[in-house]
């Protein structure tokens, strides 16, 4: 097939126009923190005298998690080295300093370039919403926890279900407006079912929602809301079957030791939404005041405790006060301590 040179050049022009458009769009969309930090370094390096020996004093005023801060610092230094030749990361008397500060909605990066008596300032700002959370702290010896899931949207209850006979582990998460089932795939949780709650959606401020699950009926669950109880199938998108009920709120959950099959009562020490709770292990009793034999700090108020593996492990939902995320932990008892 032959083409005239005019048509060919028109096509080439269209191709390049489109290519450049895509390039610009991609650039505009690269809204990542690293992109902003590199751009900041680029602006600083443009003012940095060529071949000037320099280092970067990087101060994170608790604006972002330290690990992430170091990652951003590396990107900044790398960009600066690329442009300025021989910059080095370090502290001490540096010509370039960067301060990370937190405002209500943003992280503000302030870069100061000091050349002689003159100081120049450059800024970059990113949204706080995209900041990764700090990793969880260590657990106490008796109770062990494993972070399974984290999200910003409110979680009322969650249940971890261990897969039997080669089946994948599942995580059932009850939100205010939907029940979501995740399945563990290599390296990630994958959504397998999202069931809108429809009229059962929780509109109360003190939103109560509890999942009741039996290992003998792994495809069914009962969801109890304030004033109603619903039956639902976990393997299809069928609507929930709800009826009025007045079931009492759950107060804790049994937890059985894998070592000696002894049963314990797992409960919260119960503060309000402004203070971190402790998970407490007590002798099962109808007395609320039974003393705790072990406890474990969690990073915020405890929202729910439930169990999806019989009572071999429990699942706890915690509102992390440091990050504002709802976190789902698998709680188990450690042997030998």
């Amino acid at each position, binding site marked *: 097939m032959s083409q005239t040179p005019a048509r060919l050049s028109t096509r080439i022009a269209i191709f390049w126009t489109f290519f450049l458009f895509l390039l610009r769009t991609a650039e*505009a969309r690269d809204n990542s923190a690293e992109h902003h930090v590199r751009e900041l370094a680029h602006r600083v390096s443009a003012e940095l005298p060529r071949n000037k020996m320099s280092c970067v004093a990087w101060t994170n005023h608790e604006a972002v998690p330290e690990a992430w801060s170091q990652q951003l610092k590396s990107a900044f230094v790398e960009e600066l080295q690329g442009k300025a030749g021989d910059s080095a990361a370090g502290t001490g008397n540096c010509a370039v300093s960067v301060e990370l500060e937190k405002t209500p909605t943003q992280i503000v990066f*302030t870069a100061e370039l000091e050349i002689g008596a003159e100081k120049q300032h450059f*800024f970059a700002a990113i949204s706080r919403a995209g900041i990764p959370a700090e990793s969880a702290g260590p657990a106490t010896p008796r109770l062990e926890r494993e972070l399974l899931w984290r999200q910003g949207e409110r979680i009322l209850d969650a249940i971890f279900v261990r897969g039997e006979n080669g089946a994948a582990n599942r995580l059932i998460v009850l939100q205010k407006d939907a029940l979501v089932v995740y399945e563990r795939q290599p390296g990630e949780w994958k959504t397998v079912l999202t069931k809108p709650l429809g009229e059962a959606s929780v509109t109360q401020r*003190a939103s109560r929602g509890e999942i009741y699950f039996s290992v003998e009926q792994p495809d069914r669950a009962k969801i109890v809301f304030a004033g109603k109880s619903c039956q639902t199938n976990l393997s299809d998108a069928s609507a929930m079957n709800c009826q009025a009920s007045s079931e009492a*709120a759950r107060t804790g959950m049994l937890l059985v030791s894998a070592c000696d099959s002894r049963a314990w009562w797992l409960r919260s020490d119960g503060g309000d939404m402004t203070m971190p*709770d402790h998970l407490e292990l007590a002798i099962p009793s*109808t007395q609320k005041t039974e003393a705790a034999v072990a406890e474990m700090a969690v990073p915020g108020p405890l929202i729910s405790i439930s169990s999806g593996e019989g009572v071999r492990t429990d699942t706890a939902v915690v509102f992390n006060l440091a990050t504002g995320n709802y976190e789902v932990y698998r709680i188990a008892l450690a042997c030998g301590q």
Partner: protein
Amino acid sequence: MRWPVVSKRLFALLSIFIFATAAFCSTKPRYGGTLRVEFLAQTISIDPRTWKAGSREFAANERLAALVFDRLVSVDNYGRFVPQLATEWSHDVAPRRWQFALREGVKFSDGTLLTSADAAAALAPLLPEGVQVSASGGNLIFQCTEPRPDLLELLASGRFLVFRVQGDGSLLGTGPFTLDVNTKLEKSAAEVPAAVGMSTPANFHFTANDACWAGRPFLDKIEVSYGIPPLRALFDLQAGRAELVELAADGVRRANQSNVRVWTSSPLTLYALRFDDAQPQAANQQLRETLTLSLDRATMASVLLQKQAEPAAALLPQWLSGYAFLFHVEMDLERAKQLRGALPANVAGGTSPLRLQTDVGGDLARLLAERVAVNARQTGIAVQPPSKVAHSGDSPTAEKADLHLFAWRISMLSPGEELRMLAKAAHAVMNAEGKLSEPDQRYAEEKKILEERKVMPLVALPDYAGLAANVRDWQASPWGEWRLADVWLESPGAQKNASPAAASGARP
């Protein structure tokens, strides 16, 4: 490792405990009760159209209005935008055009549905210059003449509340509480002054809105009194006559000593000096520089305000701008004296003193003004502070003052908009009118204003409140939102974990 099989007996035990009736300790909030709140403010208005930006009353107005009205969007303590009346939003690349989808099924307290036209009509007169809003189906469209990346911050704070104006001028809201009919304020009477020192302070009564789209609040009622003298507010809290009271900065120390639970916000109110451009002495750059260097802000904050304030070198506080630490103003008496020595004899005290006027009432402003005069005298500048009897902005000598001491209370989460309003109030001229969305631009503008020395920050004060021990889930924001819809009262005798001297909740 295989886990041992759990016996049927354990399941029987499990069912007993699952259905036990005890509460999940006190994590489960309790519905009911009346929260009694006392404000120091002399006037209160819940009509956002009447609020004066930067005024000290703004905080009380906003806290009460937030009981009755909702916003399109809010910001949580983790910097995330949370849908309120708007469920989602998007903008063009610029971003000049924003689109918000309005939540469906939201009703005003009279049972009528909220429409996008209602929201547009409420917000239109409140928006800053260059931002227009219109209704389109179930959406709100904001069209801005300049890029507005800060529109969410703007709408999540300040006066940007959604309401409907009724035929009789009163305002209807969709919020968690309704203003009781017998205290309902009509448009013309939205601002009710309470005379200073009057024996019976004015009151508002709010009742829980059972049909609130976000769920009924925990409290049944909120009773609000305002125009309360600071000492009386503290005594009322201690005597159990109130559960939540505003505290004055000079009363915080006493409250702490009395083991009262005290909440403190980030610094929100700036006290600053400004030269009056109309007066000839204001034109003298060297005089302004001398005065700035003579001011001892650290002593003002630590001694005069008993460490309840921070020395301020910037207009916007660090928590809002993120760069305030770049501004430094150290007291330098030697340099100030040198500069003073080079001033002409007829400037600053040679023939007549600089007249200082306080544009804001209260003992604190008067004390600060007196301290400014003392500091200035140390470098040989004569400053005449206002007399104890006539120091407010409406004094007959107001127009003749060379210096004004003013207060500015931060009310918006958009640093650019806040700087613009503050600069306007301080009569400062800005270069980049309408272009303050980026930190570089804001810093450059603020630096220019401060280097001119016509505006001199002095100290920044937080808001304070005293709380009774039974107030739970107090989750006020660091920038001063009280969020009373989430507060609940613990029943007597069930109080646990209520530490007396520290109010948690404000975690930035």
